[in-house]
């Protein structure tokens, strides 16, 4: 979405009369991008759909807290990541357990189209703690800048680089241990 579109949406959101229209444009512009961000964290499609609905509901209810200090995409991504991690915690699992995300389960999932190596990567990612997993997903798959991730997670770039480095190391070891 261009900066001009973001400005237009911000203006519409600021006025109670046009708020709903502005939010609809926002959902149209960001829902797919956010869905994929959430899906990579929670893995299952149904879970991702639920978390996405909650993300937009939270954004809608918290519209007054958005003052345009950060970009709309950053604000929404922050809510989406928090909702995804909260969802995993609510399942009383600090990380998605290895029992749940397994190569055999993923390859049997109709909404997973990956190879065995790609399934093994998902299995390895599921063993990582919250921050390492999130940084790895955003950096490795989306090639996001550390400065952008830093704004989303409210964490210093140095700490994020360290987390990413550790995550990559753990995943490599995970692969090598299964060779």
């Amino acid at each position, binding site marked *: 979405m261009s900066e001009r579109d973001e400005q237009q949406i911000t203006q519409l959101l600021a006025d109670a009369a046009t708020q709903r229209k502005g939010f609809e444009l926002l959902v149209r512009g960001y829902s*797919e991008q956010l869905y994929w961000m959430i899906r990579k964290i929670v893995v299952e499609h149904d879970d991702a759909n639920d978390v996405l609905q909650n993300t937009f509901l939270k954004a809608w209810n918290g519209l007054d807290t958005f003052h345009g200090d950060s970009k709309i995409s950053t604000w929404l991504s922050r809510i989406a990541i928090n909702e995804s991690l909260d969802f995993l915690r609510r399942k009383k699992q600090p990380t998605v357990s290895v029992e749940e995300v397994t190569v055999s389960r993923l390859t049997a999932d109709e909404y997973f189209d990956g190879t065995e190596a*790609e399934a093994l990567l998902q299995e390895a990612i599921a063993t990582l703690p919250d921050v390492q997993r999130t940084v790895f997903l955003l950096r490795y798959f989306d090639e996001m800048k550390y400065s952008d991730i830093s704004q989303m997670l409210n964490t210093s770039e140095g700490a994020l680089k360290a987390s990413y480095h550790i995550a*990559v190391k753990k995943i490599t070891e995970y692969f090598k241990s299964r060779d």
Partner: protein
Amino acid sequence: MNEEKYIEERVGKRNPFLVPEGYFDQLTDQIMQTLPERKPKAKSIWMRPVLYAAASICALLICTGTYLALSEEPKHEAALVTTPQQEVYDDDFDEAADYMMLDNHDIYALLSEN
């Protein structure tokens, strides 16, 4: 980073997930339907005078407290300076001298030694 390259060469960066057919086409409508109506924040006009009055009372109490504390301070200091001196040079000093059976000569001798 060599380890990153290792993962990339072994797995790649492709997104392996799929969604049900037509999922994204209906997504915006589906999300918009779940959103409740937003009620504009009611600004309570009658509360304003109450808030102003409470703030004025607080300010008044702080000012009075500060004034009283500052005006009492010198008296307190004077009391600290005068009272111990009187006690030492009058009753207590004599009582101590009597208790130790010292006369004036002994006292002068002790003071000159120190």
